[in-house]
């Protein structure tokens, strides 16, 4: 433990000689190593940690049990444990990593076609930074060679951190710097290379691509039924190239009419079923904005179609249309030919705007948040700084919108139509969150995988564009943290209903880590059609294969199967919190102080064990009393029937 009486808040005093200053890091490194023995680091791709290499990558975890010895032996090496088909591209000694928490560290950098691996052997235990290249958003050479001949590089990452390295100026000017090699492999798409997911050769027991099958998911919901049918009209993605091939639509609308409806909806994204209430038959349907335009164009087919959606639910004579946008934005879209449903044209329909801002606003909000939380949180004005990012405000609006949808369907027994502009960002957030509140199935691990496959992947959330996998064009205006916001909302839900979700926080963090890592094919491409064309399911491994191979890691010990319950979260801002476990996780000082989950598991395991033993003994008692009663009839023991010790 460090020898000091200094406290961080006494910053001004810190410099005075009598208080040896500590930034708590010397102490935290010790305690962290304690912890790593007991609990997993928050992320598989742990960085800035002194974790041993066993914790470093998911694949290693899979085979950790068998490979434990080997790992121990290798932990002194400067190279990472390579994944199948991962190859070292370059190595450089004497590179300095400027850790914002520990300070400058000198070590070896290895660049492979999948990762950047930095190891500093000067510390005990060795310091390791293991970064999948997919998280790199941009690489900048900072300044020119300094007087000491150092060249400095900054890596801006997609997962809320920035890294800085420096190495000596190359004497051999022809030789490429390791960071130039890194740039090549960090942006394979821009450099005519393959994304690593296409090469990754790990085999998992389960084929994750089989987790979701549209037809069986609709069947689980009870579709087809008397009001809804499955159509193959989009089988070759002709009606809508960003929609899945399997769609559920009202029974009495023939395929030909669907095509005419498609002409009136942006990008041909017609209203189709997302979820149906098992009892009331109220539905959640999703689409894109109608092509109303400045002249207020109407479409008889579209009007009839929405009427059919309403009629499919006998319980209600009303239909709610939730437009996710602020009404101003929706009106502005008319200039571009879009717009919103007028209540004159759509009788019995009520239009509600949910005031959720567009992808550009969200991108800017997250950028500000990163400035506030990384690398260090400023001591003063934390709350007002947080407020100025508006991040929680956006989270609140999304959750409030989803809650209104869920409430209309559950309490109002009314069908709802949800759309934004194109119906692949805000719409996906809203429908999937509402479904998570309404249907306990989606709160299981497999159910959540199905939910993501369905509402996000098959319905064409443009992951490639929003994340920019392997693309060096970091200023692309199409990038936006829409999916991160959704996962943040899910985390907020798990906070409010800690026993309602089968998965834990680590599951959510893992999904976000692999959103960027490009290790799995799950989040590649922009639509189902593209993924099929690129043969992504054939050529890559699904994230679900990895997750389902070690479910225990991702299971919430408190889970109770409330399958019939509907969750109505509080969206009051006092109940929304910043997801410190994700946004501030790189700061070693925020690591959880205690392994609470460990305790949860212990307590539950203890009870299960006791229950088992009681059952065993109960059986023994029954057996013995049965046998003894024949011998010693009338003995007092016989009269005592199943134990009731409680008063």
């Amino acid at each position: 433990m460090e020898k000091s009486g200094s406290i961080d808040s006494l910053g001004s005093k810190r410099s005075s000689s009598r208080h040896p200053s500590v930034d708590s890091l010397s102490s935290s490194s010790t305690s962290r190593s304690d912890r790593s023995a007991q609990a997993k680091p928050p992320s598989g791709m742990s960085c800035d940690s002194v974790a041993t290499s066993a914790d470093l990558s998911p694949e290693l975890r899979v085979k950790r049990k068998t490979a434990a010895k080997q790992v121990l032996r290798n932990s002194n090496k400067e190279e990472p444990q390579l994944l199948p088909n991962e190859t070292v591209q370059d190595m450089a000694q004497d590179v300095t990593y400027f850790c914002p928490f520990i300070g400058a560290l000198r070590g070896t950098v290895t660049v492979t076609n999948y990762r950047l691996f930095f190891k500093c052997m000067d510390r005990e235990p060795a310091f390791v930074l293991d970064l999948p290249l997919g998280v790199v958003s941009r690489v900048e050479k900072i300044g020119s060679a300094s007087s000491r001949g150092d060249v400095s590089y900054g890596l801006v990452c997609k997962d809320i951190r920035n890294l800085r390295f420096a190495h000596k100026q190359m004497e051999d000017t022809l030789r490429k710097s390791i960071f130039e090699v890194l740039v090549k492999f960090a942006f394979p798409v821009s450099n005519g290379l393959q994304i690593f997911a296409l090469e990754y050769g790990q085999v998992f027991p389960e084929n994750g691509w089989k987790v979701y099958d549209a037809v069986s998911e609709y069947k689980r919901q009870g579709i087809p039924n008397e009001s809804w049918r499955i159509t193959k009209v989009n089988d070759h993605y002709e009606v809508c190239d960003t929609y899945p091939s399997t769609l559920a639509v009202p029974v009495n609308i023939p395929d030909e009419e669907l095509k005419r409806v498609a002409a009136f909806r942006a990008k041909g994204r017609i209203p189709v079923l997302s979820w149906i209430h098992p009892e009331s038959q109220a539905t959640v349907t999703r689409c894109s904005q109608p092509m109303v335009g400045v002249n207020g164009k109407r479409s008889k087919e579209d009007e009839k179609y929405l009427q059919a959606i309403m009629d499919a639910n006998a319980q209600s004579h009303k239909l709610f249309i939730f437009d996710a946008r602020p009404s101003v934005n929706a009106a502005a879209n008319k200039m571009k030919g879009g717009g919103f449903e007028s209540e004159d044209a759509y009788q019995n329909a009520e239009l509600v705007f949910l005031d959720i801002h567009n992808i550009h606003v969200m991108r800017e909000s997250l950028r500000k948040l990163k400035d506030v939380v990384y690398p260090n949180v400023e001591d003063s004005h934390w709350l007002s700084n947080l407020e100025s990012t508006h991040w929680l405000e956006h989270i609140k609006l999304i959750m409030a919108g989803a809650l209104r949808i869920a409430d209309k369907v559950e309490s109002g027994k009314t069908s709802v139509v949800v759309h934004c502009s194109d119906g692949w960002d805000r719409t996906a957030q809203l429908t999937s969150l509402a479904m998570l509140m309404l249907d306990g199935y989606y709160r299981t691990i497999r159910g959540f995988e199905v939910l993501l496959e369905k509402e996000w992947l098959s319905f064409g959330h443009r992951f490639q564009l929003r994340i920019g996998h392997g693309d060096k064009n970091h200023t692309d205006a199409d990038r936006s943290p829409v999916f991160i916001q959704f996962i943040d909302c899910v985390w907020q839900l798990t906070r409010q209903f800690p026993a309602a979700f089968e998965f834990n926080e680590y599951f959510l963090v893992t999904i976000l880590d692999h959103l960027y890592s490009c290790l799995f094919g799950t989040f590649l491409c922009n639509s189902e059609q593209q993924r099929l064309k690129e043969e992504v399911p054939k050529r890559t491994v699904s994230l679900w294969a990895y997750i389902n191979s070690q479910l225990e890691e991702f299971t919430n010990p408190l889970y109770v199967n409330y399958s019939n319950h509907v969750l109505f979260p509080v969206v009051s801002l006092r109940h929304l919190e910043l997801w410190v476990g994700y946004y501030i996780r790189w700061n070693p000082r925020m690591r959880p102080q205690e392994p609470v989950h460990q305790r949860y598991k212990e307590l539950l395991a203890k009870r299960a064990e006791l229950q088992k033993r009681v059952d065993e003994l109960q059986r023994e008692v029954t057996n013995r009393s049965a046998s003894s009663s024949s011998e010693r009839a009338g003995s007092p023991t016989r009269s005592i029937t199943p134990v009731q010790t409680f008063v």
Partner: protein
Amino acid sequence: MEHLRTPKVENVRFLDRSSGQRKATIGTLYLSATHTIFVENNPESRKETWVLHSMVSSVERPPTIPAGSQLILRCKDFRVFQILIPQERDCLDVHTSLVRLSRPEKYSELYCLSFNPNVNKLEREESWNFIDIMADYKRMGVPNNLWVATAANSEYRVCDTYPSELFVPKTATPAIIVGSSRFRSRGRFPALSYFHQDTLAAVCRCSQPLSGFSGRCQEDEMMLQMLMKSNPGSDYIYVVDTRPKLNAMANRAAGKGYENEDHYTNIKLQFIGIENIHVMRSSQQKMIDVGEMRSPSMTDFLYGLENSGWLKHIKAILDAGLFIARAVADEGVSVLVHCSDGWDRTAQACSVASILLDPYYRTIKGLMVLIEKDWVCFGHKFSHRYAHLDGDPKEVSPVIDQFLECVWQLSEQFPCAFEFNERFIIAIHTHVYSSQYGTFLGNCQKERRDMRLRERSHSVWPQLWKDRAEYTNPLYKAELSQSQGVLRPNTTPYCFKMWKGLYNHTEKSTPPRQSPADFLSAVREESQQLEEELTNHQERIAALTGKPITWEKIEVPRRRTSHLRQTHSGPDPPTTYTDTITSPAQDNGHTLSSKPANQKTPTQDLSLTLPLRPHTQLKSPNPDDHSTRSNLESGMADLSSCSSSRRDNGKDPNLDEAVFITA
């Protein structure tokens, strides 16, 4: 009774604003000598709300509206009740009565002294011996060859706000103690608060020196030298002045101030910067205002919270404790802590440091001991700070609120390190204000002795101890490495949260309804039952295999009665009253808790929230502790079959009823 202008008003509209109730209920308002009681007219629920007079902090009378006259009752535990009385005259009577009743002028008017409990004398005396401070010093290893008890303050001769029994360095003679006390504000000379056995370093406390700009005192300098010498491991001590340096300097003009490092050899002076009681009072008020905002925007809320400065103050106190704890545990250096008078900030800093240093104080009993030692004995002015009597409003300040909040913030950071849960901390908070027990009455030990409190009232600690099952944190694990030794909390700003459990009743009653802690308490409870069943089975098997056994031994009554009783944060009203009040007799907790809780309006507002509920039950839910528990219990049923045995235990029938109504 003479202050009761009217005992009963009918057709009163009553709104529990703090619990988020939106629609007033009609009923009858009763005023007793001790409580305001509202009984709902609705014959099905007949819900009662009891508000102890001493918990009322203010009674406002807003302008009369056509429907009648209004009263707003604000309570010291941050509840707000709105009352609408049809007749203005009645309203005036109630107002006058309440204003008078909520501000007793003499101790003898106080609740704890006004009732004659049926408990016998012996039991009462025992209740006062439940917490033994001397035993705690013994636990720390004091007296020893470094620290000894001194008789200097017996009969409170040297310092009337100090306890009579104190520990000082072995070398400190009475002459030095008396000399030092003359040089200290209010005679509060340096005395031992905590002794750390591992490093032999000590935490001592005192008040500011009367140094002015140049004054010095030989005995006081010797006293500090002796403090230093009684720690063989170090050649200096820290003097922690918990005030902002500016304030300390200002005090010099009044002939007080801080230690001059030139006069005292081998001290290192450290200012911490905890603000004074006036700043804290207004800061808390600002934060409460933020909590009361009806539908604040994110901006209102976050800016409001930040501008209140409350969390910043909590951080300062925790930082002070952390500084002391590190000095003692890591550097092995003794610390002398003071502020101005050494009874507010000093108590906060010392007790937080003790919590960080010693796992014992993180247990239920330990926290009681700590509060008794650092707060009650060392003369924290409870009656002044928490307005037990009508007095100077400038003396009122949420000093112990802040200490309790520090404990809560720590328990959030170290969820497995504390034996008690949030309910326990809140229960202590309530008792500090309610003056239902004698423990927190008066301003120092001498005053309590002069009032003969031990003969006239009860100690709160045995009462809380009796209910400890309810106050236990299921996650607590004493053996856990992090639970042992020194806690090193992170004190960066984002680690401090608004304490919703205390300040936000509005949302306390609404979700999150699934509390993992409650769930785990149930799991633990079950595990205990299973263990008993196990023994039971083993014994039966032993019996069946022919060994003699006594059956009576198995039917041991379980220690679990309190767990299923209604949760209440208020202290129990005296048994004598339960008979006289007309209502379904309820013998538990009615400082202010209300029975089948607040029925929400059936039309669910979206900003309100619904609990987990099955599709089949579409009645509006009731955000209530009971339903939570029943929810959890049914959840338990999913997990295992054994929970069926939980049902038929000595459960309050009212509870079942409440659950039924709310289901």
